[in-house]
């Protein structure tokens, strides 16, 4: 049940008939996204799941204003997105840290770019975020000196530094172990309670998508389309702990079936 084209106002993110075509170096046209309509409400948590290469990152970069749609329109808070906005925060699929800057400086980077004050408070905020993701004591280290997962966590902290209304996260927990992942999920949910945010969240973990989101957007590849949008039938507040519940499991199974298709269902 792809969402219909609604009037944008009151909605945090609206994608309206969005297509995106890339041209490869040998001149071939690659249709990454086709006919994507999606409306995300204020403070909604929406996950994107789908096969590798189905256009999840492309969709996120369109919303982030880093790419322009070939056809269609992307709007945030009612305004058409033509360039990156100050009220969005993006977690890249790869950590993308500045190699010459310490972790602390990498975290302060958004504030510097957005001309926000770099005062003691900002530093404290950065250190608190690092602490939260288990990187206390790594503030003065350089990206090269961190493990892959640690770099990714630093990237998450960076996206939170300027406290954006809209969080766009591209597999933020992809390089994290089960334990860290769970802790990070919990922190993210906490954060969204303390400071409500609209979140668009790419993940490969179906469980994670059900655990965290209000709705899960299942995408199908070549070209990337929205296959179905699944509403999670549990209140977000007390979802942790209810993973074993029937609603949770059947919702996850539904998504799994969508992705794995008939073949799996038959197995």
């Amino acid at each position, binding site marked *: 049940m792809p969402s219909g084209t609604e009037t944008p106002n009151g909605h945090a993110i609206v994608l309206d008939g969005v297509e995106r075509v890339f041209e490869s170096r040998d001149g071939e046209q690659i249709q990454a996204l086709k006919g994507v309509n999606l409306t995300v409400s204020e403070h909604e948590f929406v996950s994107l799941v789908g096969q590798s290469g189905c256009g999840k990152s492309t969709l996120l970069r369109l919303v982030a204003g880093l790419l322009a749609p070939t056809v269609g329109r992307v709007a945030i808070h009612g305004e058409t997105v033509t360039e*990156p906005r100050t009220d969005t925060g993006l977690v890249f699929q790869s950590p993308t840290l500045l190699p*010459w800057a310490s972790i602390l400086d990498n975290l302060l980077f958004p504030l510097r770019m957005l001309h926000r004050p770099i005062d003691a408070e900002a530093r404290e905020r950065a250190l608190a975020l690092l602490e939260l993701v288990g990187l206390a004591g790594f503030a003065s280290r350089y990206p090269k000196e961190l493990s892959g997962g640690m770099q990714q966590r630093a990237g998450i902290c960076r996206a939170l530094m300027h406290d954006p209304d809209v969080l766009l996260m591209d597999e933020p927990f992809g390089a994290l172990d089960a334990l860290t992942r769970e802790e990070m999920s919990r922190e993210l949910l906490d954060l969204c309670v303390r400071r409500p945010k609209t979140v668009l969240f790419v993940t490969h973990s179906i469980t994670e998508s059900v655990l965290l989101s209000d709705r899960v957007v299942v995408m199908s590849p070549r070209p990337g389309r929205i296959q179905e949008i699944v509403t999670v039938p549990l209140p977000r507040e007390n979802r942790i702990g209810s993973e074993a519940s029937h609603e949770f499991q059947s919702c996850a199974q539904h998504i799994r079936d969508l992705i794995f298709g008939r073949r799996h269902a038959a197995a």
Partner: protein
Amino acid sequence: MVFEIPAFLLPSPARILRDSVAEADTLGWHTLATLKTVFLGFLASVVISLPLAVLITSSKRMANTIYPILVLTQSIPKVALAPILVILLGTNELPRIVVTFLVAFFPLVIAVATGLSSVPDDLVELGRSYRGSRWQMLTRIRLPYAVPMIFSGLKVAVTLSVVGAVVAEFVNADAGLGYFIISSTAFFETGLAYAALIILSLMGIVLFQIVVVAERVLFPWSPANTDPVSR
């Protein structure tokens, strides 16, 4: 082959030393004159090259307009340019500084432009995602990324500044090591001419090392400062 060079063309080290000690004052004063030109010319190169490189990398069109002009200033021998500069700028120090600048700045511009334009896409995207203005992209992403290339350009520029100043002194000066080399050669004071050449070489090496050390101190993360074979 070296043995075929007669003594008055390549004097013995002892002779050079003796002559330089005898004329230490004169040599010192000419050295200072040259150093001043080198310094000002190098300064001009840096001050002009950085914005120029930024301009060049701002668009393909800019590059296509500016490059030919720069190449033009390089293909024309400075010696042919000197008289015009003297007539335009007077017989003071300015033409010498301009010649030094013209000799030194080109490799710097190209090196900086190359550095600025080879920033990886993901870092550019990172900057853009925070609405980086042109200026911010430059100061927070492109320039830090280009540091190794900038210093590679500075190393060349500082070295060429020395030879630029000397060439300038060949064609327009009554002081400086360039002038001194010409005049002592003419008087067959080969020992002194060689002393001046040695001072020039040392000046070049010292200034080069200053740039190397500056890179090491200011930008310890630059790859030029890490041993390539450390595994």
